[in-house]
């Protein structure tokens, strides 16, 4: 159960969270710490996946002469990547800058042009 949250561990062990905290504070802290660590690692991994996926999408779309937009990039992102439109937008922007794409702006699905 490494990386499990306190509620999950307490449910599995059939004890109350408050009991765990008061009777075994060191163990409680270890469980929380391990949970936070695994959550941070997962977030980091999802962000990395998003970065790679967006970069690949931007390269692919640019080669085909298409403007990378939130709408055109989103379908090309894998399920394991972070799903947050602000992050996707940031990564499109970053990839275009790094790859030196000739587009000066990004068009959002609502038609608004950013950048």
């Amino acid at each position, binding site marked *: 159960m490494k990386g499990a949250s*306190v509620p999950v561990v307490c449910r599995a062990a059939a004890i109350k*969270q408050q009991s765990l*905290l008061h009777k075994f*504070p*060191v163990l*409680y*802290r270890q469980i*929380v*710490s391990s949970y*936070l*660590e695994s959550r*941070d690692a997962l977030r980091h991994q999802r962000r990395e996946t998003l970065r790679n996926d967006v970069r690949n999408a931007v390269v692919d779309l640019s080669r085909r002469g298409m403007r990378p937009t939130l709408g055109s990039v989103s379908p090309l992102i894998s399920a394991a990547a972070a799903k947050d439109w602000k992050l996707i937008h940031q990564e499109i922007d970053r990839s275009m800058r790094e790859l030196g794409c000739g587009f000066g702006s990004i068009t959002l699905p609502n038609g608004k042009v950013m950048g």
Partner: protein
Amino acid sequence: MSQYEELKTTMTDQQYLVEALTEMGFNPEVQTDGAALKGYGGVTWSRPVQVIIPREQLRGALAPIGFGRDETGVFQAVIDDLDRQYGGLDAVWLGRVAQSYKERQTMAVAKTKGYIFRGREVVQTPQGPKVQLRFAVR
């Protein structure tokens, strides 16, 4: 659920505090207008803190650490109680921050008074290691 606790310090200068924390390997965030602290499970400290060490930089910690000025302008450390009791972020750790802070403050004061820095020595005492700074008069 854990909770935030306030630990008293005598530090007043933000620059030396940030330098001391940086020296200890952290990359503290400075919030000029102050910010609230949030830890695991909705633990919060609503009084504004000006210097924050993010949780990610405190290996294994449950919550970020903050340093906030009190009404007299002195920084008080805000630390999660479980991190303090079982995570090594206790009075001894805070003492190391204060020692590094004091070293920086002393160096700065000595410089303004024209003293020449002659060396730094760590002396072992029954109370623990102490830093001795040696200066000469110009």
